[in-house]
């Protein structure tokens, strides 16, 4: 048990530190890397808590897709060295930045929300038992999700597949442009060439040369 709590504290420390580093680091690319580190350590926490499906989904979706997308956007927009104006605005040194009060307000709201949630949970413990889900504890939760996803919710599973297909078609329709005059390699043509069509003997005139453009 002691190892479990040691790991828990290590991962949560990494998560908190990297979450802070996301906001304070000057380099935007570093911010994204810290975000990825944050996601990874949180997914480790999920796995330790027995929610291995959620942890893996976190890894696949957030790290594999969202964070990489962020990285692409940051690189494309070329905002790597963003001015650090969190603690003071550069333009007018007298006025302090307007980010601080807003950020403070939002953090206070989230903090109070957390207090409310935890308070409700502690004061009314029967709330969490009111769900009448029949959970089979012998199975891992990936198995359990699989059992309902492919039986009771098969129609929704299939429809979401169609939605993803349509979104893919839509993205291709709206962005794909056929380039004219693009040279492509055709293996069939290359292999089926023979000597008679590929080689041509030319009579080269003196001091004139030949044009070999085809």
């Amino acid at each position: 048990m002691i190892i479990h709590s040691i790991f828990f504290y290590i991962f949560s420390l990494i998560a908190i530190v990297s979450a802070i580093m996301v906001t304070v680091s000057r380099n935007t690319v570093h911010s994204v890397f810290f975000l990825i580190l944050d996601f990874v350590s949180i997914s480790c926490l999920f796995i330790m808590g027995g929610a291995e499906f959620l942890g893996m989904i976190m890894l696949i979706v957030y790290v594999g897709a969202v964070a990489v997308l962020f990285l692409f956007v940051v690189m494309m927009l070329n905002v790597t060295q963003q001015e650090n104006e969190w603690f003071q605005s550069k333009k007018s040194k007298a006025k302090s930045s307007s980010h601080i009060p807003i950020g403070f307000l939002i953090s206070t709201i989230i903090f109070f929300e957390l207090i409310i949630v935890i308070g409700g949970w502690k004061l009314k413990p029967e709330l969490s038992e009111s769900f009448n889900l029949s959970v089979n504890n012998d199975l891992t939760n990936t198995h359990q999700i699989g059992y309902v996803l492919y039986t009771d919710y098969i129609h929704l599973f299939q429809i979401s597949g169609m939605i993803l297909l349509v979104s893919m078609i839509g993205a291709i329709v709206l962005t794909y442009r056929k380039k004219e005059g693009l040279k492509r390699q055709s293996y069939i043509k290359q292999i089926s060439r023979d000597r008679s069509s590929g080689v041509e003997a030319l009579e080269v005139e003196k001091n004139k040369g030949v044009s070999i453009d085809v």
Partner: protein
Amino acid sequence: MINLNFVYPEIFLSISLMVMLLIGVFKKESSNIVYILSIFSLIILLVLNFNLFDKREIYLFNEGFKIDFLSTFMKVLIISSGIFVMLSSSIYLKATKIFKIEYPILLLSSILGMMIMISSNDLIVFYMGLELQSLALYVLASFNRDNQLSSESGLKYFVLSALSSGLLLYGCSLIYGFSGTTNFNQISLNINEVQYGLTLGIVFILVGLSFKISAVPFHMWAPDVYAGSPTSVTMFFAILPKVAALTVFIKFLYIPFINLIDQWQIILIFLSISSMIFGAVAAIGQENLKRLMAYSSISHMGFALAGLSVGTNEGIQSSIVYVSIYLVMNLAFFSCLFMLKRNNSYFENIDDLSGLSKNHPLLSLSMMITLFSLAGIPPLAGFFAKFYIFLAVVKEEMYFLAIIGLLSTVIAAFYYLRIIKIIYFDPEKEKFDSDHNIGLKFTLIISTILILIYFVFPSSLTNVISNINIL
């Protein structure tokens, strides 16, 4: 054991969609083949759906799907209007150089989403269907991506629709929180008293739904998107999503929340009155026919909502009749728009119609019939549509709603009649092309004849629809 044969239409549509995608990827220059194949698959879908016409109610997937007469009828409406939209718009697509394989595939996937929406009996299924259809519609709106207006309309639709989807999801979560289930039948069982959280949830979902049918005050996107997107997509926008969203309106209000009718009735009456008045007044100043149709569709949706706000079976039936006649009129009007072509460019301003009757007497005749019908002048189909609505509204003694409806009909008649005046009495302009393909002519002729002879057999439609008894 799940009876999969009741979802054969959906399964067939998704498989044929993927097969056509593969054909389009591996075969070069296959736009034509894919287009024709998708029309054929829609026809097969229609036949498959006709097999389901049954008065039984069938629940599938843990009651997540419900196949009944209402859903089958609405699916038939959607699929047949999808066929006509595709038949009439192929020339337009070729002329504007957006005849790609993805176009019919996106149309089909949007229809698939609508079918899921229509047969949904669960908040999650409903939301997934809604997302599927609107995701395809975002792309379709900006399909002519080299055109600035089209890209703008796609982006505008995407941003606003995503916002409304967010509100709708928030409403779903509230309803789930207060009733403990997402299933429509279970919700109606679990609701015992009025809870403010539930009312709030209903309001949020109504916001999302009225955005989809562009009812005032959630209509802001409609004129820009209608005017900006390619005309074939506008035609699609004006017909199919509205039918689907209206069905969801009916299912959502009358299955889980029928006991809370006092809570939502006033909202629906407000939506209906404001849409009728705004659609009628704002269309007066429009010069672009597509923008005008956007406002006209807002006003028509107001009438359909008036039928729903009554809270009786008759009201529901009248608004279903309304929406079926509305889609026929829109098919006729937009196929007239497709005929205004000169040297591969299309005209969509009211001025371009001036003196049309001298050069194209038949086209202007069918346009006149359509416009008279849109204005609700007897004995055309549009009159009967409004008549049934007023009948249902007056029967429940909601005179205020009926009077507002009548007044807005009078106002709206002005701009329809103005177009007819421009067509028949203004100086003529250059001739338009007259080499239209057979599908376009077929659509126009069928829809005009349906509008014209509806008064001979008014009971044939109402008899079918009278099988829909939700309450």
